[in-house]
C-alpha cells in the first residue's frame, strides 16, 4: 500500500512526519535499523531521491543516525524521543485549538468541552 500523502505539501516533509510517527508509535523501536532508501521508496511509492532527502533531514535532526556498515538506526536517546513526542502532540493541539476558535468557542468553553469528552472516553 502506497503511503497516504496529501497533494499540496512537499513530499519529503510528509515522509519525515510519517517516519517520525512510526518511531513514536513504536513501529520502529530505539536502536532498530530503518529499511534501505530503496525499500522505503518502494513501500511509500515515492521517488528514491525524495526518500533520501527525507532521511537526510531526519538524520540532521538527530532522530536517526547512520552507521557506516549497517545503514540508518533509530536513536536510543529517550529524552530526544520524548521531546519529539511532545512536539507532535503540541502540533495536533494547535490545529485543534485553531479549529475550535473558528467555531467560536472561548478558551474556557474548549477546556470544559474537552474535559467532558475525556470523561466519556474513560
Amino acid at each position: 500500500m502506497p503511503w497516504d500523502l496529501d497533494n499540496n505539501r512537499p513530499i519529503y516533509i510528509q515522509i519525515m512526519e510519517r517516519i517520525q510517527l512510526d518511531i513514536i508509535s513504536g513501529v520502529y523501536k530505539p536502536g532498530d535499523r530503518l529499511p534501505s532508501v530503496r525499500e522505503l521508496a518502494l513501500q511509500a511509492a515515492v521517488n528514491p531521491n525524495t526518500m533520501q532527502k527525507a532521511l537526510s533531514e531526519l538524520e540532521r535532526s538527530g532522530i536517526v543516525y547512520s552507521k557506516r556498515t549497517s545503514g540508518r538506526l533509530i536513536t536510543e536517546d529517550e529524552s530526544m524521543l520524548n521531546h519529539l513526542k511532545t512536539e507532535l502532540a503540541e502540533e495536533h493541539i494547535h490545529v485543534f485549538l485553531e479549529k475550535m476558535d473558528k467555531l467560536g468557542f472561548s478558551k474556557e468553553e474548549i477546556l470544559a468541552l474537552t474535559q467532558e469528552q475525556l470523561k466519556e472516553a474513560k
Partner: protein
Amino acid sequence: MNPILECYGLTKSYNKMYNALHNLNLTLDRGQIIGLLGPNGSGKTTFIKLLNDVLIPTQGEIRINGMTPGVETKKIVSYLPERTYLDETMKVKDIIQYFSDFYDNFSDERAYQMLDDLQIDTNARLKTLSKGTKEKVQLILVMSRDADLYVLDEPIGGVDPAARDYILSTILNNYNEKAAILISTHLIQDIENILDRVLFIKQGQLVLNATVDEIRTEQGKSVDALFREVFRC
C-alpha cells in the same frame, strides 16, 4: 558523471509557418525520474521522436551521453513509442526472443518475471490481447533493458489502476543512479510522487523545469494543480 541529455536551441518545424518545438534548451542529469508534461499538441511527442532519431531537428542539437541520436544512442536509450511497431501476429514469447536478440542489454529473466507478475500468457499472439494488456507487454519490453535513458511516451494511459500501481513500482524498482527516466503523461496525479522533476512544455517551448518539491514548497500546490492553472483553457 556527464549529463545523460543535452539540448541546444532545439527546433523542429513541420512547415515554414509553424514550429512544433522552438529553441528548446535543456540539460538532464542521471539518476532522475522526469515528467514531461504539456497539453495536447504542445510538442511532447515531437521532442521524444527527436531524441530517438525518428525525426531530424530543423535546427539545434541533441546530445545523449555526448552523442547525436543514431545507432549508438539507440543502444542506451529504451523507447516506448505512443503507438506500437510490433508485429501483432507474433506470440509474446517470440517478441521476447526478438528483443533479446536485438539488444545486448535486454534481460529475458526480468521480462518473464514481469509477465508472470501480471499473469500474461506468453503463448498468446499480440493481436489477441486487450489494448491494456498490449500496453503492458510493450512496457515490459522497454523496462527489461538496462538502459541509460528510458523514454516513455504515455506509458500508463490505457491500463487499469491496479496495473498502473504495478507499473509505477516497476519504474521505481528499476531506478538506478546511472539512468534517467523521462515519462510523458497526462495522468499527473498518478505519477507525481515518483517524479524528481517536471518539465512543462507549452507551444513548443519549455516554460517550467523544477523539482516536484520545489513546486510544492514555492507554490503550495501539487504539480497537477499547477498544470491546470498554467494550461487553463
